[in-house]
């Protein structure tokens, strides 16, 4: 089983960190993982994206050409990557900033008011965690417990409060799409 995902947004939205958390959690679960960022002048333009693979088998190219899922944090990211998602894949997009739906009919789109949910979670900068929570709920790429362990490792120097506040935002996203699924079912 291979989970491949592209996370894309503008600088400061924490897309690279959210991607690393998936890879870290996958590693904790004993899976093969790879994470690769966009780099160079592309970053200077204020956009950032990364690709993550979590798999039971060794990972070939770490570059995610046809992701099973896309987390689009802003409109340019949705426009750039929507066409690359595999048939039947997930497109989770930040509806706080993106005022349109998904054009493709062969993927499943999930709008998420990530900014508002982050504010509700008491963590206005936690949109990346909201989006990540939604992705984990919908894909099952890694468990929530291993994401917590990954957060504890990455934020070891910042203390347990930082872990908690991020987990809270993550669960906001998780529950938000859980509701959507139930409604659709």
């Amino acid at each position, binding site marked *: 089983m291979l989970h491949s995902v592209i996370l894309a947004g503008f600088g400061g939205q924490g897309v690279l960190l959210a991607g*690393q958390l998936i*890879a*870290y959690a996958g*590693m904790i679960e004993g899976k093969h*993982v*790879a*994470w*690769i*960022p966009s*780099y*160079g*002048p592309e970053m200077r333009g204020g956009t950032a994206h990364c690709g993550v693979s979590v798999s039971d*088998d*060794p*990972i*070939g*190219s*770490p*570059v995610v*050409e046809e992701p099973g899922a896309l987390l689009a944090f802003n409109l340019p990211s949705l426009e750039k990557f929507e066409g690359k998602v595999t048939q039947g894949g997930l497109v989770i997009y930040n509806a706080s900033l993106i005022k349109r739906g998904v054009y493709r009919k062969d993927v499943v789109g999930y709008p998420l008011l990530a900014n508002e949910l982050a504010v509700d979670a008491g963590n206005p900068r936690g949109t990346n965690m909201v989006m990540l929570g939604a992705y984990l709920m919908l894909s099952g790429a890694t468990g929530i417990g291993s994401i917590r362990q990954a957060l504890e490792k990455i934020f070891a120097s910042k203390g347990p409060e930082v872990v908690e506040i991020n987990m809270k935002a993550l669960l906001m996203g998780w529950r938000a799409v859980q509701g959507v699924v139930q409604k659709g079912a």
Partner: protein
Amino acid sequence: MKVLMKGNEALAEAAIRAGCRLFFGYPITPQNEIPEYLARRMPEVGGTFLQAESEVAAINMVYGAAGTGQRVMTSSSGPGISLKQEGISFLAGAELPCVIVNMMRGGPGLGSIQASQSDYFQATKGGGHGDYRIIVLAPGSVQELADMTVWAFELAEKYTTPVMILGDGTMGQMMEPVDLDTIPIKTGHSEFPWATTGCKDRPKRIINSLYLDATMLERHNQKLQRKYRLISEELPRAEAYHTDDAELVLVAFGTAARIARGAVDQGRANGLRLGLVRPITLWPFPGEFLLAATTGARKLLVVEMNTGQMVEDVRLVVEGRIPVHFHGRCGGMLPTVKDILAQIEEMGV
């Protein structure tokens, strides 16, 4: 314990563990995390990090430091490695150990900053002026980047020669789990009978590659060639994957080999008898290994992130006994499993 690290950072940390306390470099994408990491780490371990005024200066600082017998490293990418060729030739000529990292990007010229394997010829055929070779290692994962850095320092000292780690932008930028605890920590450095350390209680030593007398230079060159023959006998290394019953064997290194492995898996799932040979040393090229692993194969397909470079060495090795095909992407584009399998279908297994 496994941690998630970028290839460039794992390599840099491995160099510290291997006892490297001297780094001279110049910024260029996609290897910047190496100097950035060492700029932080070197002062913590009492080492030297120096950003030189150019790649030319950096490699010559390496040349000076290597002369003292201490472990020293530089890193760069295509355009910078081209500038370093003068110094690499001097290091090879004066027989000094050092480690040079090339995180390849697309060329020629300024090219791009995306991953490529277009410096294979430059790395394996000499690169600079004169009749010399350097050892070239091709890592295939972040763990190998770290392990090969340690190995590179050992080989450099064993054979008193520069060793190049030939990675690419993808390899340097990607994060993968890596276990660095398995690398023994080396401190201090070895004593060498050629190192310039001040001539207290011994005759003076000279580090040099100038031999104005033709007979002397020929003798020096023959000595180098004897060393290169020894390396060619002792060192070649490669990895075989499902070659035992393979009718078609893919040959690829580094990032391309990871993709080729995916093609082997998917092809086998579809009933195709595919295998893979992955050269780990690019110079010396593992020719005998390749021959042994492909005795039953009817076709070879070389996959590279360039327009066809290693394929020439593969053809030299098989000497026309097996048809050798080529699949390449270049300019920073990566081959895909789908495209490789499409070409295999076209070729017929």
